């Protein structure tokens, strides 16, 4: 199954400020009592978007001006904590197709790339510029150019980081590696056969 080649992601962006935004905050554990990922988008950042009584709070994702956003912008160490793929799944299913942050936690980053959702880093000053621009005008068109590793918005262009392997996976449509992994079956067989602990 050929995967889409992801050269860029273009859309509106929304800034969710904060460092160390963990995956419990992205999708609280009680919403993981499910056997599919369907419907998770609804619960994205649930406890920061709602009061304990379920009333909507003042939060960028509750702001109707950002309703069409497809690029999430945040701070340092985004996605830390639990390895739950429910977190990137919730982000994706809420309509986002890319995340820009100062840095990402490792497991979250890998999980996101495997969904074909680019996660690119930018330095704090550039993130502030991007945040200010989209706050001012939520309809700003933001383009994440995976190939050139830059983010363009409102006549500006900022550099962004994306490690080579992930970039290549996105550009060449190998971001979900299952097909490649299956093709390695003969080599896997041979290697496993040589490891005593793996024998049945």
């Amino acid at each position: 199954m050929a995967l889409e080649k992801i050269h860029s992601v273009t859309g509106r962006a929304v800034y969710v400020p904060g460092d160390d935004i963990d995956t419990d905050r992205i999708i609280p554990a009680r919403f993981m009592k499910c056997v599919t990922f369907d419907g998770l988008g609804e619960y994205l950042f649930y406890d920061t978007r709602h009061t304990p009584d379920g009333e909507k709070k003042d939060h960028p994702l509750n702001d109707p001006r950002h309703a069409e956003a497809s690029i999430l912008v945040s701070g340092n160490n985004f996605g830390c904590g639990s390895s739950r793929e429910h977190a990137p799944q919730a982000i994706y299913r809420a309509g986002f197709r890319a995340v820009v942050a100062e840095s990402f936690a490792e497991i979250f980053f890998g999980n996101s790339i495997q969904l074909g959702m680019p996660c690119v880093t930018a330095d704090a000053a550039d993130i502030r510029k991007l945040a200010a621009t989209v706050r001012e005008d939520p309809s700003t068109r933001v383009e994440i150019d995976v190939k050139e590793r830059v983010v363009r918005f409102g006549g500006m262009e900022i550099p962004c980081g994306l490690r080579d392997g992930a970039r290549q996976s996105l550009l060449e449509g190998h971001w979900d590696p299952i097909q490649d992994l299956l093709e390695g079956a003969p080599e896997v067989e041979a290697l496993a056969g040589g490891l005593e602990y793996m024998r049945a």
Partner: protein
Amino acid sequence: MGKSLFKKVWDAHSVRELPNGQTQLLIGTHLIHEVTSPQAFGMLRERGIPVRFPHRTFATVDHIVPTNEVAEPYSDPLAQAMIEELRKNCADHGVTFFDTNTGHQGIVHIVGPEQGITQPGTTIACGDSHTSTHGAFGAIAFGIGTSQVRDVLATQTIALNPLKVRRINVDGELAPGVYAKDVILHIIRLLGTKGGTGFAYEYGGSVFDGFSMEERMTVCNMSIEGGARVGYVNPDETTVEYLKGRPFAPKGAGWDRAVERWLSFASDPDCEYDDVVNIRAENIAPTVTWGITPGQAVFIHENIPTPDDGGTESARESIREALEHMSFAGGEPIRGIPVDVAFLGSCTNGRLSDLKEVARYLEGHKVNPRVKAICVPGSQGVSKIAEELGLDRIFREAGFEWRAAGCSMCLAMNPDKLIGNQLCASSSNRNFKGRQGSPTGRTILMSPLMVAAAAVTGEIADAREVFGILESAGV
């Protein structure tokens, strides 16, 4: 030049380079639980792909099991659906399942070692970030997402980039009342919650040489809280001794071959690390968190920071956010903060040695009547031995509830949850906002004995004073 354990294990399990430049890495041992596996089995069904090496996947159920009701159906139908789904998936694919009626169920990171499934020189993956625990045995063990659980089920491999290796030496002698939990909280405080991104942490030095396997597991468990997906200790005689006679450990001639092989994976003395950090054991005191990340920690005799203690605007903002959530003013002592709940358990500190150490000091003390205190053994195996030793009686008499095995109040996917803005003294691993089930709930992480001290006094306290440890050590 010599090689690190990480490099040796990586090389021994590298299948090939993938078109995108990543390594196809063989996963020798795959552990699964009910939360992150059902979607993966679903993806296999959709594509009609079988489980390639069913005998190398081991399952247990931990996150959603209630610890106060054992009979099924559980009162929560969603929890019941999840356990049934796992049962069915394991049966359909021939995967070993340590179900609740086997006497071996428990938290996946306690069951693997206990069964002897976790072995040195192996690669271990599980859809759970605390998989780093298994690194205590000299395995390369890491958490993966559900799509990767699918990859392992389908191919026994995943696509991964190699990590750099940071050696963390802790030398000297820990003072009485200072535990493995304090060591890892101190490391995270020093290196930060993202300091380990891109690294495997290799823990060593005289403190780790002297640690039991269970102490090593406590430290490796929380590597991910410092951003390191992998944390490990080189295998030695302590490792071998622990594994001897365990149900899944090799037997007979196979045992001798395995031991020789296991020990050969230890990092070579002349290997070069990408980074080295040296810590003196004497500088570590009982450590507790005060904020909403595991890196926001202080020694028990220190004060909670104020925003002015942050070096940058974003650090000041993080402190402000944490103080607001915790309802602390900042600048006050952490000691004496009133506690509502005391939770003893989790994959970090729910092992037999944790319970034994607490029971040793708890006898004769009573839990403060304001405090709800629960003790949750990490596995049915831990529970059984603890009960044989009469530890359950000590906990019960002191006023702790003695529960059935599971993740319990570490993460609130079962009935054990904080209510409102309750403050919990917790032996678990995460103090994130909402982690323990109430969006406004508050968590203070600490060692098991510090949890007991908080339970007894009803406030954050120095266990060394509460239990007279300093006097008995002649300090």
